[in-house]
């Protein structure tokens, strides 16, 4: 019981062995070490960004967005089909997850914040954020691919919807929480109903922050590979229907990265450039919108 206290006391008392010079040097050394280690982590990030820009930027041109990938070993072409596929699947995911997430957030924050159901929703949303993204793919495989007996962009969209639902729900809840209580009271005091208050006062006020959450979800979904890898699979051609295998940027990077053809690897880097640019831009915008509201 007394032993740790004794040790703690020794730490501070200058018992002769610890000269002030020793303390000063140790202080400086640890500060330097801490700053050094922090800056060290910037090295890999700069390496990633540098390589993505160096290998991806030279290829960037209109043909990347309008043409199909070349046959193995050939050069030229782009990944228009993969971009279109990603846009379609992320769009499908948004159509499903945005209304669901926002409505659930409204329920949790506006209608019954302390109910058992609200607590359940928060708990489940938290758990869903912790579920590996590949599990979304496994679920979509079990629920959609095994039922329809084909890989499809619908299955990919379902997997992505589950992936982004918790993000949208939790950011929407934060956004609603940030609307001052006085706004609601003023509206209700003027005779508006609960429903009118939510639609005319609370939602418009929270909209920029909710939109930011949606944008972060879009950036995340566009870059995720695991959920679409074995639900939408991949395709060399343009998407013609929602019920057939569909190309996506992220799966294209994965497939092309291990090919022995230089031009395909360049295409993978160019696709990485598009994705990294997308997440960087959305992150910067979300910083601008969320920063001033932070205490």
């Amino acid at each position: 019981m007394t032993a740790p206290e004794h040790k703690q006391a020794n730490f501070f008392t200058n018992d002769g062995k610890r000269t002030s010079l020793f303390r000063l040097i140790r202080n400086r050394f640890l500060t330097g070490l801490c700053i050094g280690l922090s800056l060290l982590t910037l090295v890999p990030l700069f390496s990633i960004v540098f390589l993505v820009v160096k290998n991806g930027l030279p290829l960037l041109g209109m043909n990347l967005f309008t043409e199909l990938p070349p046959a193995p070993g050939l050069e030229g072409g782009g990944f228009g089909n993969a971009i279109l596929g990603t846009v379609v699947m992320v769009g499908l995911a948004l159509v499903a997850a945005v209304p669901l997430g926002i409505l659930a957030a409204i329920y949790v924050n506006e209608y019954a914040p302390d109910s058992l159901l609200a607590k359940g929703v928060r708990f489940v949303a938290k758990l869903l954020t912790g579920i590996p993204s590949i599990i979304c793919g496994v679920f979509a495989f079990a629920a959609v691919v095994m039922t329809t007996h084909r890989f499809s962009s619908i299955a990919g969209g379902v997997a992505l919807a589950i992936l982004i639902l918790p993000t949208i729900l939790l950011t929407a809840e934060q956004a609603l929480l940030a609307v001052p209580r006085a706004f609601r009271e003023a509206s209700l005091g003027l005779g508006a109903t609960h429903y009118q208050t939510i639609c005319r006062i609370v939602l418009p006020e929270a909209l920029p922050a909710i939109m930011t959450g949606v944008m972060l979800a879009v950036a995340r979904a566009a870059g995720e590979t695991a959920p679409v890898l074995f639900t939408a699979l991949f395709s060399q051609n343009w998407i013609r229907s929602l019920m057939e295998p569909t190309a996506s940027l992220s799966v294209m990077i994965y497939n092309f990265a291990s090919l022995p053809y230089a031009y395909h690897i360049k295409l993978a880097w160019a696709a990485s450039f598009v994705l990294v640019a997308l997440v960087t831009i959305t992150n910067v915008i979300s910083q601008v919108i969320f920063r001033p509201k932070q205490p």
Partner: protein
Amino acid sequence: MACWIASCLTVLLLALILGEILAKAWPAIRAFGFGFVTGVQWSPNRGVFGVLPVLIGTVLSSLLAMMLALPLGIAIALFLSEDFLPAPVRHGVRFVVELLAAIPSVVYGLWGIFIVIPLVQQYGAVISKKLGFLPFFAGPVYGNSLLTASLVLALMILPTITAISRNSLVSVPYALREGSYALGATRWETILAVILPTAAPGIVASAILAFGRAMGETMAVAMLIGNSQRLSWSLLSPSNTLSALLANQFAEADGIQVSALMYAAALLVILTLGVNVAGEFFLRHTQKATLGLR
């Protein structure tokens, strides 16, 4: 009303996911039972499925990644919560670390193939020559190895550790810091004897949650770990993780193999959910404890 339905759907979703995976895994659970977890062979052609090497690979790669990332993460968290350098620099570093979390997994994989694999090949040979008598560093050396995957994983979980550790460092009451300074302690004596011990539970929670994230990380690992189901203790030889196994085999699987993969997916869900719940519990417990100090 619509809101109520949406909430119910959200809650049901988790049950639906678990139910669907378990239902599809049922044939394999009935056929292999617990032997699935302890089996060391995975050969779909012969209908033999055991995931022990994959389980070991999952835990080992995530543990190694966590051990690599923890010191760095704590250093950055301290850097962000102390005022060593002016605020704009700290904001910059914070933004960069957050960006690290946003870069897609598959881009890490691509980067790993061209940067980390050659590095591991080069230095792995040296390490293996010097320390090859240890089973962890025994040759032959492969670029696609457990170590490569762990290095990249460490980078990917760094933002998790940094964000949560920073929060718990910032929430250490200022009075404790002032008390320590008043007793004549230097900044680092204060950090080591007062601030870090007070924030320790939060830092432990960050490590647990990061471990959970590392176990579920798929694409970068699938591209770098070499996908070998052979049991090996060497960090320099290929291995596999549950998520990488799913990523590699699902598209071409049929029959009982699909069911076996569902079984593996169920194991992955149980592992990650367990670790995450433990981490959240730890985190909540700490927040209450620090609030009590105030």
